């Protein structure tokens, strides 16, 4: 039953919501809340704040869904709200100490050909996570949306509100910095 609900198309859910069916909105929350929560948690590394921002994202979505024109995908629209909420927090709030939010990777991920020291331990993951966190906001967000959310550059551009080329350039600079910093740690 849940699968059927999850598989309902976004356009169908939106049209049902616009007809006054609040269950359609409930289905949208079911479908996307996990992705939004993970996105925010990866970004801010604070579970409580991530829950609050996820809730706020869906409340804003509810308030603005009638104005959604369907020019982009619903999830990029939701991501955009979530990223804006993160941005507000990112700039306004004093950063709390980030917690370790990751599960440890499987040992088989270590690859013999990798020029990287493979990310096997908690310390390795923390180090690379710190490198990503030190990136400027646009580079960090673009990088995270590509790597962890698997968004295309077109989708990233929609979420971030800039051109595909800007998305590519921000991503390229982020990649370059991360490879460089990670190389320093390995030495």
């Amino acid at each position: 039953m849940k699968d059927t609900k999850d598989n309902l198309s976004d356009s169908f859910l939106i049209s049902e919501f616009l007809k006054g069916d609040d269950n359609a909105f409930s289905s949208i929350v079911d479908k996307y809340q996990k992705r939004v929560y993970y996105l925010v948690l990866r970004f801010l590394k604070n579970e409580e704040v991530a829950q609050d921002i996820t809730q706020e994202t869906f409340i804003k979505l509810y308030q603005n869904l009638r104005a959604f024109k369907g020019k982009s995908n619903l999830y990029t629209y939701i991501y955009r709200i979530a990223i804006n909420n993160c941005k507000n927090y990112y700039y306004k709030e004093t950063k709390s100490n980030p917690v370790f939010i990751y599960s440890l990777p499987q040992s088989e991920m270590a690859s013999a050909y990798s020029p990287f020291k493979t990310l096997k331990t908690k310390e390795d993951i923390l180090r690379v996570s710190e490198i990503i966190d030190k990136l400027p906001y646009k580079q960090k967000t673009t990088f995270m949306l590509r790597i962890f959310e698997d968004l295309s550059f077109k989708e990233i551009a929609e979420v971030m509100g800039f051109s595909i080329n800007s998305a590519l350039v921000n991503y390229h600079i982020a990649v370059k910095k991360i490879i460089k910093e990670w190389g320093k740690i390995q030495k």
Partner: protein
Amino acid sequence: MKCNIKEIEIIKFAENLIDEYSKNKISAHLETCATCKNFYESYQNLFSELKQISIKEKDNDFYMQMKARILEKIQTRASQDTLLSKIKFILSSFRKKIIFSSSICIIILLIIASYPIFKGKQNVNVISYANLTDSEIDLILLYNGKFIDTMNYFKNNSVDSEFISSGGESLFYTTNEDEEVTLSSEENFYLELLDSKEIIKSL
């Protein structure tokens, strides 16, 4: 030999964002350029390894509770919005009347507040007194909250006159005799002061 391929082109190649011709060109270049090949491999590994860093899973209850909170907050805000819109509706219905009555109130308040200015009334306070005789009282006077002087208030019942003196010098006096006098602003002040004798008596 200087490499003429930019790193961003290699990322585009890795991300499959270039046409077939460019793809073949970069692919051939990677065979010969160690720097670009190293960057390409580093990128591929960074990508594949970071993608495998997953976040600790939460159980279904966590998401059920979060969803319940979201829907609850939406309901609460919707009811608040309804109340707010009702208040706005009421305010807008009576807007003209409210603006008119508020303006009248403000005008009345301004008139009341500015009355002493129009009248030229000074704020004279007696903060201390001592009965010396039945007809003589020592006063400490404040004028608009500032210390003025210590003074004496006299009333001479036999000639039905009263006056205020400071340092033994008579500053102003009144009698019941009918005479036309033009008063200076200073004299007006002391006249006001004498008017406050009611306060002195009540003390």
